[in-house]
């Protein structure tokens, strides 16, 4: 549906973002390339979700730039999709939820049933396809949200903690789906809390702490020998925290 790899790379340049008088993203610069699986990790409040929302264009940075590649004039939004932590379910059937996404993107009515049925089968939603989406289980809702995004064949898929509050079987099925989506060429940029999941899925890892990107490295390198001491502490399972001081410097971080 979309011309593959036309909107990537995605470059963030010195992005700052604040809300409620607090700086939540600080001087963030990074680049996302096509065909990879990026997993953003870090403790709560590190700014992982904000990074996704900024990249996806749901919020605008105060300073700095979010630049999508590709030809000028092409709307990068049309080649992206996002699945939130608690996805919004339209008050209609699972099938119609997917249909709506396609209709918004201007896919002809006659072409939709095939696309919808394919994605329904691939996400294992056949049994609940004609059920009212808001009453589905959390796991089913999450799979539906992914189906609704996947059917658009996005070049880039943002996933915000897609398995938060799911049990292991549901988590497993979502991870499998993410693998399939990536294998079809979609670049995945996701956040998660679960280091095991990051190890299983990531080709690249971003470690964030207090609104700053502390490290971005290929997964293997990151997990074997992270450069950043906070990242090291985080993957070793230490609890890291900070004292509230005016200068948010790493030296103030205490390790457990």
């Amino acid at each position, binding site marked *: 549906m979309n011309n593959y790899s036309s909107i990537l790379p995605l470059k963030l340049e010195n992005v700052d973002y604040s809300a409620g008088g607090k700086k939540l993203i600080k001087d963030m610069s990074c680049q996302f390339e096509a065909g990879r699986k990026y997993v953003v990790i870090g403790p709560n409040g590190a700014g992982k979700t904000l990074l996704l929302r900024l990249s996806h264009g749901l919020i605008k940075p105060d300073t700095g730039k979010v630049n999508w590649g590709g030809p000028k004039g092409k709307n990068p939004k049309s080649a992206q999709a996002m699945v939130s932590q608690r996805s919004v379910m339209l008050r209609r059937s699972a099938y119609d939820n997917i249909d709506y996404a396609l209709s*918004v993107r201007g896919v002809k009515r006659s072409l939709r049933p095939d696309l919808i049925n394919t994605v329904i089968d691939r996400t294992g939603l056949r049994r609940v396809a004609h059920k009212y989406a808001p009453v589905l289980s959390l796991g089913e809702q999450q799979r539906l949200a992914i189906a609704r995004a996947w059917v658009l064949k996005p070049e880039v898929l943002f996933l915000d903690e897609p398995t938060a509050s799911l049990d292991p079987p549901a988590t497993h099925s979502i991870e499998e789906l993410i693998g399939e989506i990536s294998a079809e060429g979609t670049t995945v940029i996701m956040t998660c809390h679960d280091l095991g999941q990051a190890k299983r899925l990531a080709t690249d890892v971003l470690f964030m702490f207090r609104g700053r990107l502390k490290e971005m490295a290929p997964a293997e390198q990151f997990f074997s020998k992270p450069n950043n001491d906070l990242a090291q502490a985080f993957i070793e399972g230490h609890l890291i925290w900070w004292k509230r001081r005016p200068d948010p410097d790493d030296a103030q971080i205490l390790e457990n």
Partner: protein
Amino acid sequence: MDDLWQAFFKAISLVVTLDEQLLEIVWLSLRLSLTAVGIALVIGLPLGAVLALTRFPGRRILNVIINVFMGLPPVVVGLFVYLLLSRSGPFGVLGLLFTPTAMILAQVILVVPIVTAISRQVLEELYSEYDELLRSLDASWFRRITALVWDAKFSLTTAGLAGFGRAISEVGAVMIVGGNIDHLTRVMTTAIALEARKGDLTMALSLGIVLMTVALGVNLVAYTITESAKKRHTR
């Protein structure tokens, strides 16, 4: 108490004998009110949607004005429409005064603020839920509004029913612009007012009972249709 019983039996006898005059009045009342509600929905729903979805200067004041208009005294609306449609008024040439059309116009003015305010409230709540998804999908305004109205359809029937309640029970405005002319602009409420003034309280009361039954019937039908559709929809 005797009056009440008499009125009750009279109401039943009027209905059972299919009193021709009664049927004519009931039919006109229903026709006018349903038409007015239909027109008010066409105006009020999009207006409510725009107020719910967009931010522009003066939006708050507009919201306040619409809330105030929900409590517009019907007599004042009647007077306003009368002045517009009277022979010396700006629309006098249309010759609409003392016709059902004038009555519909007055009822539309009364019902639009109710439909607008309720639909704004309903759509605003749903929009805060849908906002992120709709922005993520980069949905156009048209797509956003149609999705919201479609998904809020069951809640929005309340707007229609509240408007219908206002229209069918209204007497001041339709009396002024309709003139309560027999066989032409006499509706249930104006007929009740007339019978009461003539001193025929039994007739007035029985018409009141029929009016309440009709209003109840319309609400019941709407409720049943909505509920069964909702059940099928949310399965």
